[in-house]
């Protein structure tokens, strides 16, 4: 029989032992982003949580405004504001236990601060005095990652290692919508699912990767849908609803802590400010879109709820605002002091034991600095004495 004849006889039937490895249905995200504020479910939310989220949101917004102002005064080299996204930042910090780890991207200063980091130390990367101005172990916050999505495999590895050691630790990794296109995103999710690592991925889908809108980044129904292909649940949440983000992340973290493996959460939100203070957003988006999202401000949503439930009066609001103002004043004041830098730090942390070459370069710089101090630097090479030909 020829091959063609065989083909003619072929009737498609499933391969003998095939069945889906996982039932995809429970992994699929809901059709609409999860919301709590403004729905009946809001009445059941613990007032203490509402107040806590509110305080942190107001502080977060104030922090964003203050940091942006510091760029205008030349005190910060650059600041990627998370105004509009504070609900994600704050929830990310608040859902974690002390022993858990946060893996932020370069936009997530606020999450790091809400987790307890010194607001000034959290800004050294962006001020330019040191790359990571804090000890990651102190609050279990990994260095803010500038190369996109590269922190995700780290989160997976750390969570995996913790589980191997028998520790009850979860890692929460933050990434932007653009970052989901990177290869590292794919590899991290795949590892996490195969290892059933206790890690939660939070995508802050703020609509743009610098100038590129989500439609040019992915053709998937939602970013949460991507989870299904890896065999982990995908969850969609309204990223401006602090309570909803807190709920979805808490569930995902509890699931991971209980040995259920990773979850991919997509928070649908919006970047109100430009990409950074150095970016001109009018080149790629119109004002009306921004205005629409301003009407869905995370602070306003929460304050409406608090007020309706009689949990927030003028005096309480003023107290929250005063607290935020004090934080901003302290940040401003400390950032207005010139950082004292030691150039010799350049060599301090390259290796545990400096190489002979580095020691040589260290003494070269020491000599230059000494010469600079007594004004002899630039005294020049003292002539070739006829050496030229």
């Amino acid at each position, binding site marked *: 029989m020829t091959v063609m004849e065989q083909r003619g006889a072929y009737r498609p039937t499933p391969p003998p032992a095939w069945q889906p490895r996982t039932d995809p249905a429970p992994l699929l995200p809901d059709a609409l982003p999860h919301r709590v504020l403004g729905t009946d479910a809001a009445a059941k939310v613990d007032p203490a949580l509402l107040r806590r989220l509110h305080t942190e949101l107001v502080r977060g917004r104030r922090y964003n405004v203050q940091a942006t102002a510091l760029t205008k005064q030349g005190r910060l*080299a*650059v600041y990627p504001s998370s105004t509009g996204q504070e609900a994600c930042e704050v929830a990310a910090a608040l859902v974690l236990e002390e022993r858990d780890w946060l893996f932020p991207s*370069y936009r997530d200063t606020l999450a790091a601060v809400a987790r307890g980091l010194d607001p000034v130390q959290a800004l*050294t*990367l*962006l*001020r*330019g*005095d*040191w*790359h990571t101005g804090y000890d990651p172990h102190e609050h279990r916050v990994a260095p803010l990652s*500038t*190369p*996109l999505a590269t922190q995700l495999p780290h989160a997976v590895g750390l969570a995996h290692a913790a589980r191997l050691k028998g520790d009850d630790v979860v890692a929460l990794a933050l990434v932007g919508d*653009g*970052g989901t*296109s*990177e*290869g*590292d995103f794919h590899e991290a999710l795949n590892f996490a699912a195969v290892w059933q690592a206790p890690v939660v991925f939070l995508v802050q889908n703020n609509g743009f*990767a*610098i*100038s*590129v809108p989500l439609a*040019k*980044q*992915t053709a998937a129904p939602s970013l949460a849908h991507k989870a299904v292909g890896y065999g982990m649940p995908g969850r969609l949440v309204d990223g401006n609803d602090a309570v909803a983000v807190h709920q979805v992340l808490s569930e995902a973290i509890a699931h991971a802590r209980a040995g259920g493996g990773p979850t991919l959460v997509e928070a649908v939100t919006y970047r109100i400010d430009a990409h950074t203070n150095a970016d001109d957003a009018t*080149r*790629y988006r119109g004002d009306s879109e921004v205005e629409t999202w301003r009407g869905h401000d995370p602070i306003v949503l929460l304050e409406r709820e608090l007020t309706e439930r009689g949990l927030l009066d003028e005096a309480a609001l003023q107290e929250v605002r005063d607290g935020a103002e004090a934080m901003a004043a302290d940040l401003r004041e400390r950032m207005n002091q010139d*950082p004292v*830098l030691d*150039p010799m*730090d*350049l*060599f301090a942390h*390259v290796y545990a034991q400096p*190489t002979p*070459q*580095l020691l040589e*370069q260290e003494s070269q*710089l020491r000599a*230059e600095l000494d010469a600079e101090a007594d004004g002899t*630097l*630039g005294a*020049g*090479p*003292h*002539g*070739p*004495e006829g*050496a*030229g*030909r």
Partner: protein
Amino acid sequence: MTTVALKPATMAQALGRALRDAMAADPAVHVLGEDVGTLGGVFRVTDGLAKEFGDDRCTDTPLAEAGILGAAVGMAMYGLRPVVEMQFDAFAYPAFEQLISHVAKMRNRTRGAMPLPITIRVPYGGGIGGVEHHSDSSEAYYMATPGLHVVMPATVSDAYGLLREAIASDDPVVFLEPKRLYWSKDSWNPDEPPAVEPIGRAVVRRSGRSATLITYGPSVPVCLEAAEAARAEGWDLEVVDLRSLVPFDDETVAASVRRTGRAVVVHESGGFGGPGGEIAARVTERCFHHLEAPVLRVAGFDIPYPPPMLERHHLPGVDRILDAVGRLQWEAQS
């Protein structure tokens, strides 16, 4: 004779003009990368290209460097001439697998049947106060990979001419654009862009008799400044701008060092395992009997690129160059 009105242009504008002219001249030329379309690139080099040539010719891609370069490989296989933009030096690293395993080797693997005319534009180097991962000098990685051309302009005219050449090249070219020179200006005749120089020719930017400074890219203006400052000390320095590391113009460099008898290589990437070692060896091999002193190197320190507030201590500046020039009085010293 008509006098032409010269107009000032920045290096960024000259690069944009080169892309525009190349796209107009050849429909096979496509530009792709992150934010190159609507935004015109974060340094505005691709400004206006999407409007003029459409999204298919100047494409905002998903945010994935390996994907961008990998797709460019396929596009080139099918007869296009992709010009890709890597947003910053350190963000090209996800694409290294594609670069090293495929882009650099395709011609060789296919015994010449499948050349890849891809231009990879990389804003590179420090000195702009950028935060972490925005200031790497990555040329040593590229020059260590056979199959790639490695080109870096230092002037506005060269930015135009060399980029046109790179796009016209039938081999992949890593085109390193010194970030801190993007806003440097020169006057040129916009109706008659500068003559195109073939890739691989160094140029003597300043002639002198007592020693040669061998440099490229962002360090060229620094060396010219050092040469001016050295005049007061009685040194008459020659400055050679390499313009490309691969191919390397041994002839121009050796001819200069034979004239002067002394040489200092200057670059901002680290010295250990850096381009200067290769250059010093080549000069020594060719000019041994003409040398009055060993070939010296002035390079960045062998450290990860420092935070902006300390970068001035890392980048080779005029004083460090003059200090090396002083050490060229070898007889007196040894």
